[in-house]
């Protein structure tokens, strides 16, 4: 069994201890975010394949998600930012989007780079999101969406943001970026990034102040 299958099966068994061990072993020769990109994400996707293959049910998915969430929280505590940035990012999933594992990984990337992270979690109603922006006055707002069905909610939020906060950079990522050509559906002030390495590159190149990639 390869590492990805091994981790997927540990997550499904709810064996957080062994799952954590496997991950820690990986971290001896891989950075936290490479591990998330190359091991943890594929393991969750593997769980999706098992469901499509009728080998597991949604109850198993819930358990695996809980363990994955726990592991991410545990890794989060160990983060020691390289250098504090006086920058704040607001993270959220749009209304009705419940997939949040990717969002948590994104939070960890920003934290590692010394950003102040305001994690609003998934399924943020638009009014709440706008209130949170007033409240925290972030330098960047990052949005995650998994399902194509969320495109309406994203469009609505992004257009509202463009009206109320025309200079606030917006970053969008998640599975939806692989399913739709968002460049054609959203205004050009929105940065579209499909992966953690892409995000990391954007941040190290100065984020909102650096060169524009999308």
């Amino acid at each position, binding site marked *: 069994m390869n590492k990805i299958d091994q981790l997927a099966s540990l997550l499904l068994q709810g064996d957080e201890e062994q799952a954590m061990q496997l991950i820690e072993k990986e971290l001896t020769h891989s950075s936290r975010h490479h591990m998330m990109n190359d091991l943890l994400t594929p393991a969750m996707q593997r769980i999706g394949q098992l469901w499509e293959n009728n080998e597991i049910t949604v109850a198993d998915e819930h358990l695996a998600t809980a363990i994955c969430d726990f592991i991410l929280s545990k890794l989060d505590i160990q983060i020691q930012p390289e250098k504090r940035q006086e920058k704040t990012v607001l993270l959220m999933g749009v209304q009705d989007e*419940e997939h949040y594992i990717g969002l948590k990984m994104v939070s960890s990337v920003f934290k590692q780079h010394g950003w102040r992270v305001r994690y609003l979690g998934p*399924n943020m109603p638009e009014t709440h999101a706008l209130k949170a922006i007033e409240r925290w006055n972030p330098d960047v707002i990052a949005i995650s969406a998994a399902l194509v069905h969320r495109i309406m909610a994203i469009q609505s939020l992004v257009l509202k943001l463009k009206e109320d906060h025309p200079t606030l950079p917006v970053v969008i990522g998640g599975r939806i970026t692989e399913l739709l050509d968002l460049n054609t559906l959203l205004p050009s002030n929105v940065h579209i990034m499909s992966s953690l390495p892409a995000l990391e590159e954007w941040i190290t190149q100065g984020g909102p102040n650096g060169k524009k990639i999308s």
Partner: protein
Amino acid sequence: MGKRFRDFSLPAVVINHEFEIIDASDAFLHKYGWARTFLSIVDSGSQSKVAKFLPSLTTGTPLEISLQEKQGKLDFVDLFVTWTKEDGIVTVVPKSSQYSLVSSKLSLLQAELSIRNNELVEEKDRVQSLLVEMQNLSAPAIVIREGVSLVPIFGSIDTGQMTLIFTRLLTHFMDEKTEIAIIDFTASIDFASSNWQGVDEFVRAASIMGVEIIVSGLHPSQVKALNDLQIQPASIRFYAKLAAALQAIN
């Protein structure tokens, strides 16, 4: 199929082996509308699962999938099927709607909670920066005349704070071209000699910068304790009273 099937209280369809819809219950039409093939109301992420497993699904076994409602909403459901030679009756059983009600309520609460949580995080940040400020205040460095700085220590101070103070003092020495620094403990309650850790390094760094360290305001018993611990660098002068220290440098 007859009227009895259409009146069936759950969404149900009759399909042939190519998944073409032959008949549908009113409950089905109400929710999903009419479609030529069953697969077209199945969410894209569930299509291969339906195509692969529905044809051989045995009676009474559920197949867990997502269906797309007329208005685009995704339903999480169990499909049950009874096949005959020509066709199959597919019944759609929603995964407990109670559950989804609770879960949407829950996510609203979660949203509220995460805002509160962020407020707490903000408060923590603020307190932390206040703390640093306070630490600076608990050991201000005062230039009493050119080349001489006085550092009165206030309140009780632990090892971590001591390290921070030392780091800040070294910068101050550099900026102010300090030659002599008096660190006065008169106003510091419960000074523990274990907090003296790191002082060795500090004094060495200071002396490289050409700064002499004088300590005042320690009780003789505390000085003795330091001596006993052998962490007292030889190059420090000790005075019991601040006045004595000031006099000595004149």
